[in-house]
């Protein structure tokens, strides 16, 4: 059996590799983070089935604490970790949206229009159909954005899916906070238009 220390050591090494630019490290760390996010979600539900759930940021922070313990790692580490976790969250949320739609719709019914999405976001706060449709449209638009600017798409992942602050995003992607701010606002405008076109 691997002890907790063994596991911690290996994720620490992986994180160091991410930071030093090892091209294979993010994918490997991703698997670890992805599993950990699931495990936390499951564990919490078992402990307190009826209480409030965690939002993205809380979930990601919890995963970081579980994997690295408290105190030992600095801000930089957390930022790099969160950037990887953001990708995992994207996958989890998109998968959830997809299942949500498959379950509710079972095929046939058209996705919500952009207008319906906007309306739903104003009123309800539940992760129901229009939001799920919007999320899938966002995922596809983000793939197109990646063709144009890898950096902007990563920034959107960190900010939107990872719930990361401007500073954390800047640290993780090794760019200035000003660049993150600029790219984030431009990417939002671009994605907004793409989604509106797609959903009609």
């Amino acid at each position, binding site marked *: *059996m691997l002890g907790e220390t063994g596991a911690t050591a290996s994720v620490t090494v992986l994180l160091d590799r991410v930071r*030093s*630019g*090892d*091209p*294979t490290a*993010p*994918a490997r760390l991703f698997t670890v983070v992805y*599993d950990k*996010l*699931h495990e*936390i*979600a*499951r564990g*919490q*539900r078992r402990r307190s089935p009826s209480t409030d*759930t*965690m*939002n*993205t*940021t809380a*979930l990601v922070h919890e995963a970081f604490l579980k994997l690295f313990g408290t105190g030992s790692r600095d801000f930089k580490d957390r930022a790099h970790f969160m950037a990887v976790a953001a990708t995992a*969250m994207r996958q*989890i*949320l998109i*998968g*959830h949206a*997809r*299942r949500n739609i*498959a379950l509710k719709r079972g095929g046939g019914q058209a996705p919500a229009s952009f207008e319906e999405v*906007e309306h739903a*976001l*104003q009123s309800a*706060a*539940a*992760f129901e159909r229009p*939001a799920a449709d*919007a*999320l899938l449209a*966002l995922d596809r638009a983000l793939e*197109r954005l*990646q*063709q*144009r*600017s*890898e950096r*902007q798409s990563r920034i959107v992942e960190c900010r*939107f899916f990872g*719930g990361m602050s401007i500073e954390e995003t800047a640290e993780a992607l090794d760019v200035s906070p000003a660049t993150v701010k*600029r*790219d984030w*606002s*431009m990417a*939002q*405008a*671009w*994605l*907004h*238009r793409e989604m509106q*076109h797609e959903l009609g």
Partner: protein
Amino acid sequence: MMREHRVEPDDWERLAALWEAASALPPDQRDALLRSHALDGALREELESLLARAGAAEAFFDRLQSVVAESAHTAAESEHQAVATAPPAADPIVGRTVGHYHIEARLGQGGMGIVYRAADLRLRRTVALKVLRAQAPDDARARDRLLTEARVAAALDHANICTIYEVGETAEQQPFIAMAFYPGETLEQLLRRGPLPVSTAIDYATQIARGLGAAHQRGIIHRDVKPANVVVTEDGVLKLLDFGIARHLDIGASHDGVTPGTIAYMSPEQVTSRAVDRRSDLWSLGIVFYEMCTGVRPFGGEHAGAILYAIVHESQAPAQTLRDDLPAHVGSIIERLLAKDPAERYADAEALILDLTSGAFKGSDPLIAAQRPSMRWRRRAALYSVAVLAVVAFAVSWRGGDRPALSESRIAAQDLYDQGHRDVLFRTESGRREALGFFRQAIAVDSTFATAHAGLAHLLVMISDNAGGSRREQLTEAEVAARTAIRLDSLHADAHASLGHVLLFDYRFAEAEVEFKRAVALDATTPYVREFLVWLYIFTDRPRDALAAAERAAADNPTSATAIAEQARALLVNGRCNDALPLLRRLMLLQPPPARVGAIAAQCYAQQRMWTNAIDAVRGVAEQTPLQGNPWLGFMLARGGETIRGREIRDTLLAQWRRGKGGAYGVALAYAGLRNFDEAFAWLDKSIDDRSLHYNIMEPAFEDLRHDPRFDRVRQKLGIDAKR
């Protein structure tokens, strides 16, 4: 309203800069800014359209995010539920060790058993471990049969078949299969998002057919071809799972009830329990192909009974009626695959592959069109002979062959060639050496086998230092092999490609170009031929032609890692590192990445003075070549300021050269890194003589040298025009 994307990646950085300037200004002052930059129509229109919605967009994403973020926890939980239908806590196997596999997580459950992700403790790799549910767990004979069959399937080695590492039994005598773990998703998951682009559907169908063809040649029928049994890896390679085990298991008709997802792919003969042969697999592939093209299954329905009835008695709606842009030939391929009578289907996977791949051919290029009638006939003849060969090989193995056909020596030669011609063998130096052995044996068995001569020529060019002879002698041997291939079959496209390959590295560029173009004309799908053209154009200082060829290569073969790498290289030599890097990053995630990616990525990073990344890029993809002898690493270290380590690598390369290992080119590259241009030029001169000089000479690494008047001599010696 215009719907297309008006701004292409080239202008993106400019747009971002303008965005920053304009969004800082109040709206009434923006006009002046846009005027002062003399913006052209499209860019201005784009900027204005984005600025106009900036506020709305921010508010929108704010709200969307708060809705989504609150459900992150539920999503993670539901994801988990979806991945493992039962909570792993209830699965006692997770956390245990089976044989030398440590079971880490449950990945999914199917009719055949449960799949886990496991760590192979001996070889330290991640595997997928399928613990099978046998029909009668207590029946030792049934279990033995299953194990035997699984072991036969394990012997299959093909790029489109999932690699099986081991077949064994747990302590409780449950059979298990340890197989390669491919990051990616199943075709079933992919299809939930809807139909695929036609070209992708054709590519996937071809890949599945290739995997099936390889199995059928060995007499193995899959029996359960369906999207859930196909993994689409991250680099777009399809892997077929679960060969031949279907019949031993109670798929579908079990206590779990009959699942439409399984029976929808069954052939009429399976439904009616008649004899099943390989044409049954082709039917199932037909259903998958139909679904990839249209997004729906031809025989659907809520009830198993209705589906089964439809499979046997009803005809499907023609796929074209569900998709307007479906080419007619794709529709007819599907019709033929879904013929109720097996005799009316394709006789085998090879005949199907022929139709799938020749369809893309039609009307592409006047030169090809002119060639086509005779070529098509030849290709058909060639493939039919392969098909006959397969039948004969099968018949021979059963000692019942009564077909008059190719000589036994050709069969043996083809078999040896197949063993050598596996992409995986070509990737590493040792693999190439192994393949070389197979090709030589194939020629020894049948000296009239053009394909093997061409393969031998390719390999002799690729293998860096032949045992014994010099590189020049090796190229001479390669040229003889390539010309022999052409003499044996002057219409063999790869024979011409192989001659071009030899001539390119013998710096006979004009002749090489003729051969490559002939290969393309004979068969535009000849492996790697467009990538060779990219090299040729780069070498002869025609970067734009190189980019055009690379884009064509990547478009023709969107799932080829090497084609994407060459596209990145072409972008690099055209000064477009920003466009090359996203491609390269994707390639670097592959396991292993194509070796050539390192030098391309490193040069991109070097352009941006990101030395750490450049050095890591070389390290990240270095196969088994010891790093201390890697000239690219030496170059990047030296330029990145680590002169001492750059010199160490140069010394290693010099010592290797003295021992007759490695060409002068590596030494030249190391000296160029150290900015010792006198030595670099001296060694470049030598490298032309010993034929180790590379098209890299026209890439950014050698930029300083190319600006030096002494480079004219290099050009002259190579016969490259100084123009352009």
